[in-house]
């Protein structure tokens, strides 16, 4: 019997805790708070990178006002009605 098969059998005997975390046999096992899932970390990194890019763009390009969204000179237009 290969190690992989033994590991799979062992996992199935203990219960699939990956797919069914609410059906753990012993609730006392989770005495420590769970860590942050990988997908949350990935999304947080993406959000931070986007935020940094926006801040850099603001520092380089100036204020992010409506006038910034136009290519020409729009000083004569009033942006707030």
């Amino acid at each position, binding site marked *: 019997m290969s190690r992989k098969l033994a590991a799979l059998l062992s996992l199935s005997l203990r219960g699939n805790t990956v797919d069914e975390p609410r059906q753990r046999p012993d609730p006392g096992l*989770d005495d420590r708070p769970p860590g942050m899932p990988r997908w949350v970390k990935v999304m947080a990194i993406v959000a931070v990178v986007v935020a940094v890019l926006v801040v850099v763009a603001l520092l380089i390009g100036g204020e992010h006002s409506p006038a910034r*969204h136009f290519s020409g000179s729009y000083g004569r*237009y009033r942006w707030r009605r």
Partner: protein
Amino acid sequence: MAPGPRKVALTIHVASSVGWSGAIVAFIGLVLLGLTTPDAATVRGVYLVMEPTAWTVLLPLAVVSLITGIVQALGTTWGLLRHYWVLTKLAITAFATAFLLIYTKTFAAMAVVAADPDAALETVRNPSPGVHGILALLLVLTATVLSIFKPRGLTRYGWRQQREQRQRARPATQPG
């Protein structure tokens, strides 16, 4: 929350969220039309119609989606702060709604330019709502994916709540 009101709230939440996505796609379509059509009246019309449509369609759908999402979370066992996917969805929806509210200034600015008969057509054409629309669509679609897949992950608060519930339930379920 009782099953009846819960399903009503869920229906309103799904309808408003899907409607919001559709409205964003419609805005992207409008921008594509505004950037490509040779007809001057159509170009000006595209940028004139965006501001009132944002106030009457986009923003109400966003606010309803946000409110019904909070109601849905608080009224069910999912909770608002217990699961990372619910928390992430809340952050995405709140951010997108706030950003949309700020962006209405840009819609107003574009309408002012479009209404000016002296403004050149190339001045009126503006890709900004298209770029922001694509980013908004990505955010809303991410929230949709989170709702459907509900990826695992308890927050520390959710873990504490779950542990307290188990501790309360244990004496009643143990034999003897």
